[in-house]
Structure formats: C-alpha cells, structure tokens
C-alpha cells in the first residue's frame, strides 16, 4: 500500500512536470545576445567538430569580433566530436533543423550535393576561391562542376620516422624509394634477446579506413599507379603497381618488420613501438606533447616512390559550406567569406590564424600560407607544406566512402593473411566497380 501511495504522488508530480515540459519550448541558448537590434536580426548556427577547450576559445573570439562589427548578427556555435559529426548533420537535415554553416570533410560533399543540401556560393566567391587556392584544394571542394565552399585545413601524408632509432640502427639515409623503405623497415625492427619485440620498423593502422587507404594510395601513386579512372567509371588499382604496394606490406608483415596487431594506431609511432609510419600532419599535436624520444627526434620525409614514379601524397581538405535550407544564406556566406579572407595585404585571414595557432594545421589558402610563413617555417610544418605541391586529391564522388571502406577491408584481409594479395585487390576492385556503376 505504501508503494502504491508513493506511486500516486510520483504520477501526479510526473504529469505536472510533463505538462510543464511540453509547454516549455526550450530554445537553444544564444551565445551572445544582439546588443542593438538594427536592420533585421539574423541568427546563424555554425557546426564544427572543434569542441576542444583550446579550440573553442579562439573561435569564439573570432565570432565575437564579427558580431561586434555586425551587431544585427547572432552566431551560435555548436560542436560535436568528429565521429558524430556526419550523423548529426544528416539527421538534422532529415528533421529540417540544419545548422546554417558547417565545417565538413570534403569526402562528404558529393553526397550532400546529390541531396541538394548545399547552397552554392556566389560567382565572386567562387572566383576568389579559385584564385587563392591550389588546384588540388579547389578540386577537393568541387562536385558536379561547382565549387561549394572555402577549403580550410589541407591534410597530407608523409613518412614520419624516429631519428633516434635511425641513428641507433646505423641508418644514415632516409628511404626514398620503395626498396629502400623495405630495407630500412627490417633493419629498424629490433627484438630482445628472448625474442620479444622492442619495436617494429613501420606501423600500420588497421581498423581505420583513412589510416589504411590513405597511406596505401599515397604509395600507389608514388609507384606510378592509379586509383580510379578520371571519368570515375572504373577502378584502376588492381594493377601490377597496386599489387607491388600490397606486396610490400605483405612481405614486411611476413618478415615481422610490420605487425598489424601491434596496437593499430598512430600512437604506435608516438610511443616508440615503431620506427616509421606514414601519417598525416594533424598528428603533430600528439607528437609535440608525447613523442617518446622528444619532438626534436621526429623526422619527416616524402613518401618513398617506386622505380618509375615520383613521390606523391594524398591530400584531403576540410571546408566551410552553407546549408541550402538556411533562412539566411546570404548572411551565412558573408560570415564565411569574412572568416576566409585576408585581413589585409600580406596578412592572414581569421581562419588562417585560427588553423595555425589553435590547431597546428596547414591552411589551404595560398595567401595564408605566405602570410604565415613564419609559423610554417617550423621543421614539421615546413615539410608538410612542401608536400602540398606534390599531392593528388582524394577523389570525391558519390559512394567514395563506400569504396574506401571496401579497399580498407580487403587490404586488411591481406595483411592478416585471410586473403592473398591478388585476391584482396581483385575483390576490392570488383566491389569498387560495382559501386561506381551503381552511382553513375
């Protein structure tokens, strides 16, 4: 009976609260109220994955600056972690509550465009983008013949190596060719007297699609191989060149110079479990704080190339895009443009400052790269910056993510010995071709 009475009270309370809750229309808290309502008050919602404290403050400072100069604009900044970003965007879209502006990974652009989700920038913005960004970066944000936003970070891959381990192993020359890479990897594998592993020559990152495919493609291109046909009608990586790259991995795995089961992430390199790794520039922050032998022992070298190829790295970009269903498309583009335009001759843009200070990333804008050449002159940054002239952009197309995952799954199968190299590439190619045909 007592339970019963408690239940009654709770139900009554509950109904009361529920009614109150239904009546309440909680509107998201605005970051800052518009001080003086002038022309038309405009509210813009921005979504990125830069939620870390160290990245929130500088961004908020920039937004505050803009709002001070444009008092009728209120900007609400939202962030979510990277692995939830895409889900959040697509579900918000499906429910009709999209943010006005988002910062997205360029691989998603074709699908967004196919769904009619993005608002095309005006012609002058397009011209500005085409004029201030490298061909690779412009291509990275182009789909269906249209440029869709301002590229922000440019990410490339290089061969990172542990200088101290190189010295200990007596290797003076950093590998430049695939053969040299193979050689070095095994020379750098060190075992204890009892056979337990001290460190392997090179690390790989199974379980992560970019971690597997991006280095693979970089090596493929450096070996004069191709990924997809230019008209995106079929896959071209199931070729002698592709096989050679996969064999490089497999042979090294068989010899124990690469261990796919080691730890499986770039932290293997950071913690000294591996002497080398092909990895992107954004790992810099972790290297600065935690590299086992100290940041000064991190070496950066171009991707090793094959006999007939030249060192090429994969490039991908992030970009600012505007949602088509936004009620303030023009204002949104105005804000995005301000963020990405140089403050003055020879000066960096707000984004340029932000990317280099808060993130330690490389801005895609050429004027930014020049204006911030001081920051860019640091050893690590300079090396990656130099690599931006030898890149091939990750192809963006509808179904691109799916092809990438198919490639990843099969490469991993080869690494773990579940398929032969030939089988793995053949299966991946078959899957890729199917996806390409399906999405034509």
């Amino acid at each position: 009976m007592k339970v019963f009475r408690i239940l009654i009270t709770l139900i009554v309370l509950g109904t009361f609260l529920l009614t109150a809750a239904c009546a309440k229309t909680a509107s998201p808290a605005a970051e800052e109220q518009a001080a003086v309502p002038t022309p038309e008050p405009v509210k813009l919602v921005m979504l990125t994955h830069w939620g870390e404290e160290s990245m929130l403050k500088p961004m908020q400072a920039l937004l505050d600056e803009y709002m001070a100069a444009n008092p009728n604009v209120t900007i609400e900044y939202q962030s979510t972690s990277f692995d939830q970003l895409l889900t959040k965007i697509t579900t918000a879209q499906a429910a009709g509550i999209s943010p006005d502006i988002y910062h997205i990974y360029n691989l998603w652009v074709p699908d967004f465009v196919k769904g009619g989700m993005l608002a095309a920038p005006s012609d002058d913005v397009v011209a500005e983008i085409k004029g201030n960004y490298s061909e690779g970066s412009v291509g990275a944000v182009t789909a269906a013949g249209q440029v869709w936003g301002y590229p922000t970070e440019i990410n490339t891959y290089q061969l990172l190596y542990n200088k101290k381990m190189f010295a200990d192993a007596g290797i003076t020359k950093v590998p430049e060719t695939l053969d040299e890479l193979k050689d070095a990897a095994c020379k750098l594998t060190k075992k204890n007297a009892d056979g337990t592993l001290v460190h392997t020559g090179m690390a790989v990152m199974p379980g992560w699609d970019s971690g597997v495919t991006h280095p693979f493609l970089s090596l493929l291109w450096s070996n004069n191989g191709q990924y997809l046909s230019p008209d995106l009608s079929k896959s071209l990586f199931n070729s002698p060149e592709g096989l050679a790259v996969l064999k490089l991995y497999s042979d090294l795995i068989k010899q124990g110079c690469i261990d796919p089961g080691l730890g499986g992430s770039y932290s293997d390199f950071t913690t000294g479990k591996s002497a080398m790794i092909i990895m992107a520039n954004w790992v810099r922050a972790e290297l600065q704080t935690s590299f086992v032998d100290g940041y000064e022992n991190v070496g950066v070298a171009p991707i090793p190339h094959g006999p007939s190829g030249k060192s090429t790295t994969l490039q991908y970009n992030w970009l600012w895009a505007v949602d088509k269903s936004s009620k303030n498309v023009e204002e949104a583009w105005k804000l995005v443009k301000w963020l990405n335009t140089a403050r003055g001759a020879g000066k960096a843009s707000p984004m340029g400052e932000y990317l280099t200070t808060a993130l330690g990333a490389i801005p895609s804008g050429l004027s930014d790269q020049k204006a911030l050449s001081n920051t860019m002159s640091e050893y690590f940054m300079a090396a990656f910056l130099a690599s931006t002239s030898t890149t091939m952009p990750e192809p963006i197309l509808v179904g691109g993510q799916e092809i990438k995952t198919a490639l990843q799954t099969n490469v991993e199968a080869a690494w773990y010995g579940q398929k032969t190299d030939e089988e793995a590439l053949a299966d991946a190619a078959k899957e890729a071709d199917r996806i390409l045909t399906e999405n034509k």
Partner: protein
Amino acid sequence: METKRLSFFTILWTVVKYLLLIVLGAWMLLPFYWMISASLMTSKEIIQMPPPLLPAVPQWSNYVEVTQVLDLAKAYLNSLIVTGLTVLGILFTSSLAGFAFAKYKFRGRDTLFAMILSTMMIPFFVILIPVFYVVKQFGWINNYAGLIMPGLVSAYGIFMMRQFIMTLPDEYLDAARMDGASEFRIYWQVILPLTGPALVTLGVFNMVGVWNSFLWPLLVVQSPDMYTVPLALNSLRTYGMEARVLNLQMAGTVASVIPTLIAFVWLQRYFTRGIALTGLKG
C-alpha cells in the same frame, strides 16, 4: 537438511563456494578498480604507457574539475527528470496494457499482442529517422518531451506485466466487480498494489536503460543545457586531447554510476521477490 555432516566435503564445498564467488566477484570489479584508479590520476599519469596501476597521489580534484567543466549538476537534473518520467510512463502503460492483455477478452487481442512483441525485434536506429521526424513535427526537439515521449512505452514491459498479471487470481477481479467497482478502479486499487514487486523490477531495469541511453539524446538535444549525463560525459571527449582527459571522463563515469547503484541497493529486496512472482514460471 537434517543430516548435517560436518564432513570434509561440507567444508570443502564451503571453501569452494566462497572461492568461486571471490573469483567471479574479482572479475566483476576489475574494470571498476581501473575506472576509479584512472579517475584519480593526473593527466600525465594517464597517458603514460604503460599506465601505472595506482595513482601516485589520488587527485580528488578531478571530480571537482569535471563538475566545473561540464554543468554536471544540470545534466544530472535533466537525466533525473527524463529517467523518472520515462520510467513512470513505462510502468503505467505496461501495467495498463499488460492488465488488458492478461484479463480481458477482446477480438484481435492475441494478434495485437504478437504485433507489440514484434516491435521489440527492430533495432532502434532503423526507425530513428521517422521517429525523429515525428518528434520534430510535434515540436519536441531539444526539450524534455522529445527525450521522454519516444521511450514511454516498452513492449518488453508489456510482456512482463502481462505474464505477471496472468498469475493473479480472477477472483480478486470478480469480487471487486461484484462490489460495483469500475474497471479503472480495479486497475488502480486492485491490480497496481498487487503488482508492486514486478513494477519495481521493471522500473529498475528501465531506469538503467534510460539513464544510460545515448544515441537518441545525442540527436534530439541541440544545446548543452539539455544534456543528459551520457551526453555531458561524451562532450568531455572534445574537451581536450582524448587521451589526456581520460581521467576526467572516468571521474564522470564513476559519478554517473552511483545513482543507479544506490537505487538498486535500496530496491534490491523487491527485486527478487518481484521476479519470483512474475509468473515467468508459468
């Protein structure tokens, strides 16, 4: 057991029993030891590889820091409201519907019941988008209604309550009807009290589920002031470099486990009695 032989066997058996319990118990506690230990480490210790077994100096300040970085109090309040109301809703709807399925005869009853059961067989995220759309139409995005309403009815709960109520003798109902009680009063004053223990069981398990639910709130909630505890903890991941805030995340997780644990300990005695009586045996 009249024959109590204090034989070697009995002693051995007792030792074995406790040994097994200890081993099982240790296995249960292992991750929690790590969770608590990690929650008290400094950020430097936590990124060490290998991480130390115990913190050098327990950093109780981590718990304070977590509450500062996140509005953990608000998140707790939100979680409490959402969990409380959702569970109440589930108890109410499950017992009402369970009662109907158990004690009433109407055309299509069993088909309807089978249909309800089959809704358990679809993974939630498949119907995520349409439910999201419905919620949006009602204007329930980013408020309590959006968090509570989609969880108000549980097929599992209906199933359980039906089983239980089926074991209650019809005589109680007949007697009440003889006395001229309306059907609803029968439900309120006869069925509900009798199903107390089963309700508690259902309540506690659902409470855990709702408290820990993550995917749905992730999509419905658009602003930090509506965060539930899992969302708040998740937002920690972007607070700093992931590895370095593991200690704070652990502190938050420990803190979030405590309420449900307390509820369990408090309601524990209703538990097993409830399950025993739920007619699962029949």
